[in-house]
């Protein structure tokens, strides 16, 4: 029979609550948001660079894209991790969809090159913001439905 034991570790984080004259939660959030806004330009440049890498994959044949799907996922993930912080939420969501498909490939062995290609095409549409907000939402919803239909867990 296996044994288990429990103990209560010291909660060192609790010290942050002892702040009689400290800043309020609202002030801390506001300051953090202001700091992240300053990174906007840099993040947009970074995302544009990564989107160029992804668009190059879109021009390649199916076998070569499949062979490099982990590199595609890494590139998409690096976009998804930061895009929304620079007001590029839709780009981030489409990139997140690519991560989901590659993770599904790794865990379930399911792969759909056409679905990936559609995501790559969608990213090109979404990146310049030329699509109307309603159209962007339709694009993202259709991509999500497609992923679900091919068995990707969201």
């Amino acid at each position: 029979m296996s044994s288990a034991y429990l103990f209560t570790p010291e909660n060192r984080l609790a010290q942050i609550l002892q702040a009689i004259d400290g800043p309020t939660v609202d002030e801390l959030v506001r300051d953090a948001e202001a700091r992240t806004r300053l990174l906007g330009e840099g993040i947009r440049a970074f995302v544009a660079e990564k989107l160029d890498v992804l668009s190059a994959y879109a021009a390649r044949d199916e076998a070569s894209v499949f062979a490099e799907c982990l590199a595609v996922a890494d590139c998409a993930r690096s976009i998804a991790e930061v895009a929304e912080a620079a007001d590029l939420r839709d780009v981030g969501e489409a990139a997140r969809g690519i991560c989901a498909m590659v993770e599904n490939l790794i865990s379930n062995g399911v792969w759909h090159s056409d679905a990936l290609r559609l995501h790559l095409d969608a990213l090109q549409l979404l990146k310049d913001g030329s699509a109307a907000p309603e159209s962007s939402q339709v694009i993202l919803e259709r991509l999500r439905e497609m992923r679900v239909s091919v068995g990707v867990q969201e």
Partner: protein
Amino acid sequence: MLSKRLDLRRTNILVVDDSLPSLELISQVLMGFRVERTVAVRSAQEARDAVAGRLFDLILVDGEMPDGDGISFTFELRRQEKSPNRATPVVLLCSYTPREKVVRARDAGVNVVVKKPVSPAVLLARITWLARTSREFVVSSAYAGPDRRFQHVALGPDQHERRAEQLALAATPERALSQSDIDNLFG
């Protein structure tokens, strides 16, 4: 009444992320929170070295890194009996958070999963929750980490706890035999 003021200046936080823009983003959020003691590293191996030599109050770790993800890192950390950071709260940061990954993270001993990019309001809410909550730490052959049980659900009418008979006996001590009664049975 819960305090709405927080002092994170002296909080020791380890941030682990292989992506430079993401690391910069998280670092700026923490600076906005007035955290003065942040250590930022860019790989799971650097994180292992960092937790071996210094005590942290909180660890923020990327869920997806090429040399080992945050889930594996946490799994290892929770099993290091001598590590000063064995029970340090771990927040897993992931760009993609399907249910399966969240369950895997919980079972590895992760305290909280937060979606990337990190929203300052969400991250601060999670940190505050961790500060207010003292969860027990469980160590068994199958699991090491914060107690995963959040609910105490009453058993149904047809369900019986395994210890039910012992508990019933303890509740009615007059029905229990004393040691001398037991000795007499064998005398």
